[in-house]
């Protein structure tokens, strides 16, 4: 394209005042009007920093030293403030919940018009027009609690479109979304892109999910430098993804396992363009060669939920006649969309709430009369956000807290804390303040502070939310280690990769009812379950379809078995 670039980085570097090293090094990048660009990179690579330079949060909210130039519409951003930039660049942040400023969809969309002193009548007209553009015109008076994840995304998008910006910047739009909503979000972006002729920049590490729709270019950032700038097909063929620790699309992994060379002529960038039919033989041969794991001996039950029902207000049943039986040493996913009853279930198990009907057994012992504190010695619960659990400055004190509450003598506490820290790989940091730790390390601290109480069952709420592939793998491999020590692990999640790779069994809740209790591969290939739990079909299933393999679920299960063997689990 020989159009004048709309965004141009020229030898651009940036260093936060709080850091000793620059976060971005000598960036050269130009983006033409009407392009759709995806920026990927692991956490800490500088991709969000790059985005914040474009929208003006840097240096407005985060100060630092800028070297080189960044031009938007040919004008240097150094001379512009964040408000002037917001007329050109509309930013949709991650977490559409947290950025919802207004109390209703309409008010949220109107926010920037209010700040522009647009008169009342004109404002309502403009809001209506933009709401229509994203299909929200019938929801203008709804509060954020009444909106679905997808509708919140539409609202956030409308809130920046209302400024008539020509550049749309999405900062990790998929971070807190379930798979189905994430898919919808990508479709909404595509829809606006094709109809409104905007320049689109998406910053995300979930590559495969963004490639649900076409993008012009993918920029890969690692350690503050651009290391690749190409289209989806050639990126997937190169080794850049593996080197930077970004997860390649799952179907590409499967093709590689089957010994198929990934080249541009099979158009591997998108599952929709992939030419897989000529590789049918290689795939079926591979599938046939996969050894089925030996059936495990049935272990005794450790947690049994029998006919449990619960309601907060006595009218709406949040859980309705739930039955399942967890065996000793299992690792199980509990899935379902928001409001399906997952967290309530974990609250009942921990004793935070009491069920109205039914019984929860720990090894044939009814838990009904056990207090929260007593249950905590059997069942540990780890919240999603480690900041919600950490209340001490030093790692040692934090992990020791639960033992000190129990008045255990100090000389017994020290060895127990040291052991928990060792299991969690935190020994080198034992003297460190918690504030110096990364998110993943804090997560480990919270897990250690629960493990120290010696629970047999561990319940984790979204343990990998918002983590990139490397951290995700770190946390999950760590949980596998703990699981191997004999701890039964229950994971509340909507991460499909996690289900596929780590939990052989998945329990699916929908509107308070248990609708499936089966293998992860059957869940992720069962259309009805997928629909009611806001999941989406795994691309492995599509790959099987493209290659005319009729037993899709068998193919997915084969992939799981193969990986488990490969990783020796």
């Amino acid at each position, binding site marked *: 394209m020989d159009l004048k670039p709309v965004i141009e980085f020229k030898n651009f570097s940036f260093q936060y005042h709080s850091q000793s090293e620059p976060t971005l090094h000598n960036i050269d990048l130009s983006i033409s009007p009407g392009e759709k660009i995806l920026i990927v990179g692991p956490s800490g690579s500088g991709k969000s920093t790059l985005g914040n330079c474009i929208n003006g949060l840097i240096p407005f909210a985060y100060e630092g030293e800028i070297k080189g130039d960044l031009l938007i519409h040919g004008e240097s951003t150094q001379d512009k403030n964040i408000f002037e930039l917001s007329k050109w660049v509309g930013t949709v942040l991650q977490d559409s919940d947290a950025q919802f400023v207004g*109390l209703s969809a*309409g*008010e949220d969309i109107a926010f920037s018009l209010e*700040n522009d*002193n647009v008169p009342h009548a004109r404002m309502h007209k403009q809001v209506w027009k933009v709401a229509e553009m994203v299909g929200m015109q019938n929801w203008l008076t709804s509060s954020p609690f009444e909106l679905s994840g997808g509708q919140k995304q539409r609202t956030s998008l409308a809130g920046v479109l209302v400024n008539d910006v020509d550049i749309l910047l999405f900062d990790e739009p998929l971070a807190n979304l379930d798979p189905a909503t994430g898919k919808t979000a990508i479709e909404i972006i595509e829809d606006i892109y094709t109809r409104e002729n905007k320049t689109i920049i998406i910053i995300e590490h979930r590559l495969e999910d963004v490639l649900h729709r076409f993008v012009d270019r993918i920029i890969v950032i690692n350690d503050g430098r651009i290391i690749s700038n190409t289209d989806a097909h050639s990126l997937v063929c190169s080794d850049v993804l593996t080197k930077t620790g970004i997860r390649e699309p799952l179907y590409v992994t499967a093709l590689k396992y089957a010994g198929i060379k990934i080249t541009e002529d099979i158009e591997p960038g998108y599952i929709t363009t992939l030419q897989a039919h000529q590789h049918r033989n290689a795939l079926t041969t591979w599938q046939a060669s996969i050894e089925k794991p030996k059936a495990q001996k049935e272990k005794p039950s450790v947690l049994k939920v029998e006919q449990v029902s619960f309601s907060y207000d006595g009218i709406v049943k949040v859980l309705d006649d739930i039955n399942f039986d967890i065996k000793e040493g299992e690792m199980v996913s509990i899935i379902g969309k928001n409001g399906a009853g997952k967290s309530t279930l974990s609250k009942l198990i921990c004793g935070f709430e009491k069920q109205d009907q039914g019984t929860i057994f720990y090894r044939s012992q009814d838990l009904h009369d056990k207090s*929260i504190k007593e*249950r905590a010695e059997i069942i540990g*619960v780890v919240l999603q956000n480690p900041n919600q659990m950490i*209340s001490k400055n030093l790692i040692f004190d934090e992990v020791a807290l639960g033992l000190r*509450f129990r008045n255990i003598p100090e000389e017994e506490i020290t060895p127990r804390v040291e052991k928990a820290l060792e299991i969690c790989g935190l020994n080198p940091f034992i003297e460190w303040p918690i504030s110096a730790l990364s998110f993943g390390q804090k997560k480990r601290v919270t897990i250690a502070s629960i493990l120290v109480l010696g629970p047999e069952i561990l319940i984790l709420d979204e343990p990998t939310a918002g983590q990139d592939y490397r951290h995700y793998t770190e946390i999950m491999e760590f949980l596998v280690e703990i699981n191997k020590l004999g701890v039964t692990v229950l994971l509340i999640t909507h991460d499909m990769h996690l289900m596929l790779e780590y939990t052989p069994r998945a329990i699916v809740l929908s509107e308070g009812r248990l609708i499936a209790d089966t293998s992860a591969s059957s869940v992720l290939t069962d259309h009805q379950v997928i629909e009611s739990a806001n999941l989406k079909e795994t691309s492995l299933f599509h790959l099987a379809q493209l290659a005319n393999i009729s037993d899709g679920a068998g193919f997915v299960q084969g992939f799981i078995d193969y990986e488990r063997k490969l990783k020796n689990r």
Partner: protein
Amino acid sequence: MNVKAKLFSYDLVDSPIHQLSGLTKLICFLLLTFAVMYSYDIRMILLVMLFAVFIMRISKIKFSQIKLMVVYVLIFVLTNAIISFLFSPEMGVEIYGSRTPILNLPGKFDLTAEQLLYSTTKLFKYASVIPFGIIFLLTTNPSEFASSLNRIGIHYKVSYAVALTLRYFPDIQRDYHEISQAQQARGLELSRKASFFNRIKNGLLIIIPLIFSSLDRIETISNAMDLRGFSKSNTRTWYTSRKMKRNDYAALIISASIFIAMAGVSIFINKSRFYNPFV
């Protein structure tokens, strides 16, 4: 959603009171509060209190919603009455200029009719003002509240801060609940089994994580606001501001009349802020 999380939060019910503009409600609230605070005429105050109950009925506020608040208010008002009696048992006598003992008690603590009237009047003053506060909070959308504060001259940044606080109150309450449960699972004792001092210390173990997780929230929301031009100019307009309708004027006239009546009774009939039946 948990019923507890709804305490203090604006409720989306439709009633004539909900439909009044935020500005109307704010002005009415101020007028009625000043009226009741100015006058010590128990007859008028009781009338206003009946009016408050009536309004609460119209605005479809359920007793269960405000039960906890009512209990706190009762405790506060009663403690207030007892303590002021202990510190100045002759306050009523000073004000009304007569002394009619009903109950002779040791020391200077005689119970006089004057003191009883004074304390009761004060008690009902609170009991009639607080319902208006509750009605105002529960029937006004926080954003509309902000816009009305702004319209009576308070800077929009301050107004918006107030609105955001109200708005995040339920969220923070939910966080608090979650954190407290997780800490209790680790063995934290919050029940009466722990000593008072320990309960305060243990409370900190919930507050600290609460602050840190709220800070995350604040960073995101303030970035989102900056990116959409908040604080770029000295004024702003409001999506939720409503045009004044007939009912708004009616409400204003009623409140203003009550205010004038209260002031009038004090000035022309009682010739003082106090109604004095003892002369």
